[in-house]
């Protein structure tokens, strides 16, 4: 078993537990960030191959990691950033009401 994957699943579970058990809004946002970084780590672990390099500007025969998980990872990071930003903005708006 890939230790990266085990760590990722644990992160998702810790973050998910925090999201549904915490009452404080800020802690819930942080829990969501933890859970989604767990998902990102999981995807990274899936694409990883021993000794392979990034699939950028390499010779045709070079061993490269699977590029698709990297695309998913990048997208998930960007979307996670947007979600965190909107969540914090909503918290501020709720505080100011």
């Amino acid at each position, binding site marked *: 078993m890939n230790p990266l994957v085990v760590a990722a699943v644990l992160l998702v579970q810790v973050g998910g537990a925090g999201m549904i058990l915490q009452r404080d*809004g800020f802690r819930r946002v942080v829990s969501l960030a933890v859970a989604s970084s767990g998902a990102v780590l999981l995807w990274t672990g899936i694409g990883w191959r021993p000794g392979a390099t990034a699939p950028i500007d390499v010779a045709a025969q070079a061993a490269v990691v699977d590029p698709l998980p990297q695309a998913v990872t990048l997208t998930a990071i960007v979307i996670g950033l947007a979600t965190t930003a909107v969540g914090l903005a909503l918290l501020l708006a709720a505080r100011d009401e």
Partner: protein
Amino acid sequence: MSGAHPAFLVFVPALSGLCLVGFGSRRWGAGPAFAAALVCLAVLAGTVALAAGLAPQAGVVGGWPEPVGIRVELDRMGTLVVAVAAVVIGLACLYAAGEGGYDAKFHGLMLVLLAGAVGLCGARDLFNAFVWLELVSIVACILIAYRGGRRAVEAAFDYLMASGLGMVFFLVGVALVYRQVGTLAMSDLAGFTGKGPVIRAGAALCVAGVGLKAALAPLHVWLPAAHGEAPTPVSATLSGVMVKASFVALARLLGAFDIGFLGGAVMVLGAAGAVGAALLALAQSDPKRLLAYSTVSQMGFVLAALGAGATGPALAHACFHAAFKSLLFLCAGYAIALSGTRDISKMGGLLRISPAMGVALLVGAAAMSGVPGTSGFLSKSAVAGGVPTAVFAALLLAAAGTVAAMAKLCAMLFGRGRRAPVCEPLTGFRLVPLVVLAAGCIVPGVLPGPAMRLFGLGPPAGAGAMLSALAALLLGVATFLLTRGAWWGAVSRLLRRREPALGRMLFVIYVATAALAAGSVFVR
């Protein structure tokens, strides 16, 4: 047309929406609303062109041939839901212009929401679906909190958290599937045989993540607050567009994975949600909350039919529900403005004060109750014909509960009630959406032929369907009369107080089970 491509239906609303968000000015008055309505009209025209075969249904985006490029395909289901979404969003923008107080950014965001819904309906791989699902929910959150107000902002935040959790589910589920299958394209998934426990767990997580957005009980807990507290045009859009686009994604997922137990689970959870949410709708005192619970209930009908494999009836009920629920939300929002209270027991006599709104509300309530001669009768009897007997019995109960809740809603039209000192009369921009949506409820009921061909429904409903509709109506009216007493007031206060905790508990149990299952798959 050689240059036509289904992705234009995404680009046009997305770009024009972003222009409105970026450059929109407060001095433009109702201009942005008109512009948004025109763009929606253009998207509607595009779907008509697709349906008529004037433009290709499928295309590839990204400048690469198919396995690498992103496939976009709007089949009949996608095209119909996109058409409904365009109509509902255009009308909601017009209504917002009539209500006043919405600026260009609001209309721009509505167009971005439309673009997201189109993209979701056209998505043919899990990655693409993930991006559109996230886009749609983030935009929806901003729209829910748009007018401010503590309760609306908190509802938006809760929704953002729930959908974020759902999307983490989805990402983990897709990861499980991808590790086994090595592809994300739904068409390849459908052809993949030998689905082991890892794929089953991954598929279950994906379905749970999307089901959360399509109001699959018990993952619906965020919905009543979000739909009930949102500004009125946004409430109409949420139940008319967002839930429906998620339904399309769920239907695609179930079709791609083609795993029996998932369909069965969706069917059972849908039927349970239909009954439970109908009861909770009857217990609400706020008209918009009542309608929000009834959205969960009606989506229960849709999901039960989908899980049972009756995709045509499910699609028909989803589209018809978009029309009558948007109509009812717009009417309820106006009724709240008219009476200056959100307590249904203090509202009354509204038919006399605003006959147009009253008639529209009656039409919407009749369609929702499945009165023969309306769109709701057509789709509900089609759903009834497509599900097993036990589910049918549950749905009959849910239909009766719906009738009772609608009777409770319509009671505010009659009798005496107080009236707000200031409220603009219902004219112009606010009247047009009501008329169009009411026509959308009546026309398919009176002329069922074209609608049945469009949705691929079976032969017209016979005496049995009429009988069950009558039974639901009678049972519902009896329930309404029974629940007028003081005892029901006490019971509904109790239900309203206990329901959030109960829903939360179910939600936690569900999520914990999913997390443990996913964990055990990895650790094996």
